[in-house]
């Protein structure tokens, strides 16, 4: 018997990881079995850190150590009773909602255009949409600083050269620069779900509407738009969550006079070294974001049911 044959005769040597009994049991089982590795990953890297973060919000942390028996609701109480918190929370919500709305306005025509193109043009458009995602958001934010920044920025140079303004306009370090940055960076996250839904829609319903005498505009608003509600909901939830909790864009494009909840979390944790206050703000930010996303999904369901009722 040669060495290869001997190895072949040993059943344990022939079994790879894919044939391991534990793996086989996991894969053959129904329900959560196949998802166990992903769930374990989520527990270790999301559930436990979030639980720790949330628990820090109820405890006093001094010099990196939790003070024993320091459980208190007072930390949440003082944050919720502070007008600064509400002003900053409102700004976070407002910039998140506005950038989501602008993204939707800009993304819908692009997604609709995609459905009307041939296969080559579709691929080119898809590459154009996805290409920015291949670059770090940080790099793109710095690019906006170059474009919008000061008297020597690209935008002011162009405006002055064209004679559209007499003196440089200030856009960087204002709400506008944050809005521009958020919209550009999050636009692909709105376009992609819309494309997915618009491509899969039943075009025959639109044709039926046209055949029955409705115009193109009426068909769009009464048939196409309602049919794309699932894509609008997915894109809105995604872009809002990204914008509402974003740190880099307000930090770099908003300037020192611009603070959002995410920026305040950084200030408390890193600058002030008050982990309790940081954890309170982070918990409120994440919790409120979760609630807003649920509201968006709920509103989407209501809209979908209403649409289905009208179409049927």
């Amino acid at each position: 018997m040669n060495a290869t044959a001997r190895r072949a005769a040993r059943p344990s040597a022939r079994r790879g990881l894919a044939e391991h009994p534990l793996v086989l049991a996991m894969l053959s089982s129904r329900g959560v079995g196949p998802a166990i590795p992903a769930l374990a990953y989520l527990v270790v890297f999301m559930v436990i850190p979030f639980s720790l973060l949330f628990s820090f919000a109820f405890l006093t942390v001094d010099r990196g150590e939790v003070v024993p028996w320091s459980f208190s609701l007072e930390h949440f109480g003082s944050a919720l009773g502070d007008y600064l918190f509400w002003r900053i929370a409102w700004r976070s919500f407002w910039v998140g909602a506005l950038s989501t709305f602008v993204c939707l306005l800009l993304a819908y025509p692009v997604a609709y255009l995609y459905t009307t193109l041939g296969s080559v043009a579709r691929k080119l458009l898809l590459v154009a949409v996805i290409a920015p995602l291949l670059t770090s958001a940080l790099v793109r934010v710095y690019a906006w600083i170059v474009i919008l920044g000061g008297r020597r920025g690209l935008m002011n140079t162009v405006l002055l050269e064209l004679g559209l303004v007499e003196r440089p306009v200030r856009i960087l370090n204002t709400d506008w620069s944050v809005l521009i940055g958020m919209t550009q960076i999050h636009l692909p996250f709105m376009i992609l779900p819309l494309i997915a839904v618009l491509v899969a829609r039943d075009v025959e319903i639109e044709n039926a509407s046209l055949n029955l005498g409705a115009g193109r505009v009426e068909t769009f608003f009464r048939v196409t738009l309602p049919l794309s509600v699932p894509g609008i909901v997915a894109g809105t939830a995604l872009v809002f969550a990204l914008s509402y909790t974003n740190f880099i864009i307000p930090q770099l494009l908003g300037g020192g006079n611009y603070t959002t909840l995410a920026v305040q979390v950084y200030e408390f944790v890193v600058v002030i070294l008050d982990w309790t206050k940081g954890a309170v703000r982070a918990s409120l930010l994440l919790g409120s974001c979760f609630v807003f996303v649920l509201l968006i999904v709920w509103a989407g369901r209501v809209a979908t049911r209403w649409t289905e009722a009208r179409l049927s």
Partner: protein
Amino acid sequence: MIRKIETSTGSRGITRRGFGKGALAIGTAATVGFPSIIRAEDRELVVISYGGELQEPHRWLGDQMEARHPGLKVRLVASESQDIVAQIKAARGHSPYDAMPNGEPPHLIAMNDGYIQKRDDSKLSNLGNVYPEFLEKTSGFGVPATFSLIGIAYNEEMVSTPPTAWKDLWNEEYAGIRGICRTSSNLGLGTLAITSKIFGGSESDLEPAWAKLKELDPIAGRSPRILAQMMERGEIAIAPLWNNDAAVAENKGMPIRFVKPDPGPVAIVSVMSEITGTRHPDLVYEWMDGIISQEYQAFAADAPYYFGVTVKGVDVPEAAKPYTPSTPEEVLALQTVDWPNIVKVRPQLVERFDREFSV
């Protein structure tokens, strides 16, 4: 044939030979592609440093140490000291860094929180060179590396009348083009303290400063570096700024000038300290001793860094005179701040900035 099947279907089973080959391949890849894995066996001194050109004096010193200790790597990490303190705090005694420079406010915080170690004078042969006034500022922790000035920087293309005194910042001519730094930085705290002092307040009564800074209606920078960049881009034309940042900007050809305003610029000492839990205490002492050597001090005092000299026997270079005090009168005019009073309320001051300027 069988051998071919075995190698091409490696995923079916892990054999000893296969494992050996794999390990060899990984080892080769690590040697060729990931030399840092091999270098991990060597010693590495990790020192927090400044960003950009201001890091060059540290690099110069690091190169000298590497030449003296074959196999030693001195890694400089450009970062804000507040970020580093937060990381050290999170590491709970297992700091990835060995030494760090701190301005007086974070130095006091690090000292009180135990993130830096008390100095052992017997291990520093150059300590006798240090001016006693600077040594006093360390409170027995670390060595006084350099000092920097907070003065007023302005863009000479946008400002027709250069300021000469702190109070000039409030001139109507500069409305809409004034900048200040947030109080999360030493620059911001220094600006707050000097404003309070010149308008009748003190370090323990900062209310006059808040009111006067509000009058400026300033555009705020998140850090001194960002404030300097804002001035370079022309978003602001005048602001309290570090002398070193103004010097670097001017050296790059920017129309930025620096003035030491009356009654005098604010001087802040930077202290190089041993971080608690360092793996290389002897190397850290060698590094700190190098920092207070006359050679290093002369290098750091020269163009374009213009760091203030803290040891005896080093002359201020001619080119540095617009940025550092060069006469006894200028030294006497330097403004100092009672930092322990400020540090006590630093968290409230950082929050207060948002209340005053971000809503």
